[in-house]
Each structure stands twice: as structure tokens, then as C-alpha cells.
């Protein structure tokens, strides 16, 4: 199959029925693998990794903090992409997937913020500091809240999909602006995002590296969170599709179809 044909085949899943049937088939795989990865990663990290020489046992928090933070951002990115797809191609499933993802993003952001605060208490001596990265996540959290609130407030589902999609686009631009503004406003005391740099993995950069001992369980946790996110999005999108159909059927019953 050519790439174009594959891309075309992908759009077929935009049909709600097809989406429901397919997601039903693949969901068990994602539930099980995500559960397995998160269990393995967390158990490995919690029981079988040494303490950090500087941070002591609090280093174990990164197995939750880092994957949650990554997913908090990636979830917004996914919502941005699906919103664009909805605005351009008018596939209902896409808009509903964005709606389904938002509460997951809220929970991920909350985990990242809470574990960060719990970690910051012994490390920085304070629960909360207006560090740029923490502040950015707090702002992201507000964006999520506004997005979900707008979905809930609007009666007509298509209007809601349109308006939230535009909000997601505009919000993304302002979220990036806020990130720069916050960086400018306070230089911060947060560690760099050391996991994502190749140098950190190879250990070439000794300053802020996450050493291999911590890296592999962390990687498994990240994979687990990604799989859990996919499973939740698929499942919740199915729920939204059904909710939407119930609404449509009820509307039709009212007009006396």
C-alpha cells in the first residue's frame, strides 16, 4: 500500500462506527500493556534503584513526575492536532477525541504539579516556588480548565466542537507566549529536562544527567504512561461518541421522528 493510500485508509476510522469497532478490538491490548509497563517501571524504580547521592530517595518520584509532565504537554499537542483535523476535515471523531483527552490532560498536569510540590518541599525547602516550569504547568492547567468548561457550557455539540477547537488553537499560541514570558520573568531553579537529551542518556554530560540506573525504569514508565494515555483516549472517545449519539437520538425523539 502506498503512503497516500495508507493515509486515506486512516481517515476511515473517522467513521464513528468503524472507530468504535476497531477501538473495541485494540483496547484490551493497550489496557494490559500499559498496566504491565507502569507496574514494572514503578516496581523496578521503587524497589530496585539506588538513592541519588544528592536527592536521596526522593529521586524515585521522577518515575511519576516526568512521565506525567510529558503526557500533560503531549495531551495538549494531541488536542491541538485533533482540533485542526476537525476544523479542516470535519470528522466528528476527531473533535470528540480532543474532548475525551482534556480531562486526562488535567489529571496528568495535576500529578506533575503535586509530585513536583511534594519533591520540592524537601529539596527546595518549599512546597511551591514560582519557578518558570512550575508556573508554566500551572498556566497549562488553567488552559485545560477553560477548555473543558467551554465544552460543558455549550449546548449544541457541533458549535461546541468548533469553538473549543478555535480556543485550542489560540490557547496554544498563548501558552507558548506565556512560557517565554514566564522564563523572562523568573530564571528559575528547576532542573533542565535532562531525560530528553541524548547526552543525558549516554552520560556525556555529567552535569545534569539521569544515569542509566534511573533511566531504564523511567523509560518503561514513560512508555506505560503513553500506552495508558492511548487506552484512555480510545475508551473515552468511544464514550463521547455514544453520548453524542444518545443526544442525537433524544433530539430526534423530541421532534417526533
Amino acid at each position, binding site marked *: 500500500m502506498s503512503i497516500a493510500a495508507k493515509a486515506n485508509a486512516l481517515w476511515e476510522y473517522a467513521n464513528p462506527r468503524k472507530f468504535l469497532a476497531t477501538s473495541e478490538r485494540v483496547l484490551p491490548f493497550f489496557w494490559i500493556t500499559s498496566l504491565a509497563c507502569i507496574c514494572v517501571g514503578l516496581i523496578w524504580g521503587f524497589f530496585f534503584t539506588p538513592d541519588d547521592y544528592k536527592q536521596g530517595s526522593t529521586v*524515585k518520584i521522577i518515575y511519576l513526575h516526568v512521565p506525567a509532565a510529558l503526557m500533560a504537554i503531549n495531551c495538549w499537542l494531541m488536542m491541538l492536532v485533533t482540533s485542526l483535523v476537525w476544523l479542516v476535515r470535519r470528522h466528528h471523531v476527531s473533535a470528540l477525541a480532543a474532548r475525551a483527552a482534556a480531562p486526562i490532560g488535567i489529571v496528568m498536569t495535576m500529578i506533575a504539579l*503535586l509530585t513536583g510540590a511534594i519533591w520540592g518541599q524537601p529539596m527546595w525547602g518549599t512546597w511551591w516556588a514560582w519557578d518558570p516550569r512550575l508556573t508554566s504547568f500551572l498556566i497549562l492547567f488553567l488552559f485545560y480548565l477553560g477548555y473543558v468548561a467551554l465544552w460543558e457550557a455549550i449546548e449544541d455539540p457541533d458549535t461546541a466542537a468548533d469553538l473549543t477547537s478555535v480556543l485550542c488553537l489560540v490557547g496554544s499560541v498563548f501558552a507558548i507566549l506565556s512560557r517565554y514570558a514566564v522564563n523572562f520573568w523568573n530564571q528559575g531553579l528547576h532542573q533542565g529536562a535532562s531525560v530528553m537529551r541524548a547526552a543525558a542518556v549516554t552520560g556525556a554530560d555529567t552535569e545534569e544527567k539521569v544515569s542509566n540506573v534511573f533511566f531504564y525504569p523511567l523509560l518503561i514508565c514513560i512508555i506505560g504512561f503513553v500506552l495508558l494515555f492511548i487506552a484512555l483516549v480510545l475508551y473515552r472517545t468511544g464514550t463521547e461518541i455514544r453520548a453524542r449519539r444518545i443526544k442525537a437520538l433524544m433530539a*430526534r425523539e423530541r421532534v417526533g421522528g
Partner: protein
Amino acid sequence: MIPDLGKYADSVLSSYAVSVGLLVVLVAYSVIRGRKMRRDMEKIEQRMSRNG
């Protein structure tokens, strides 16, 4: 079995508790709502196909 977490035991354990708790709540809420929607949809589909 629990490894020695030293003086940071509270921090580590509460982090894990909070995170796992939130994840469980999210999954449970999703599943409960999903089940309900599935039921409701079947109900209304049956009702409507009976009534035409």
C-alpha cells in the same frame, strides 16, 4: 520488603499515593461513565427501533 527510604519516606510515599490515586480515579470515572453511556445508548436504540 519496603526499601529504606530514609528521611524522605513521607515525600516518596505520598507522591506515589497521590499519583496512583489520581490515575485510579480517572480510570474508574472513565469506565463508570463509559458503561453508563453504553447502557443508555442500547436502551434508547431499542426503544426507538421498537417505536419505529
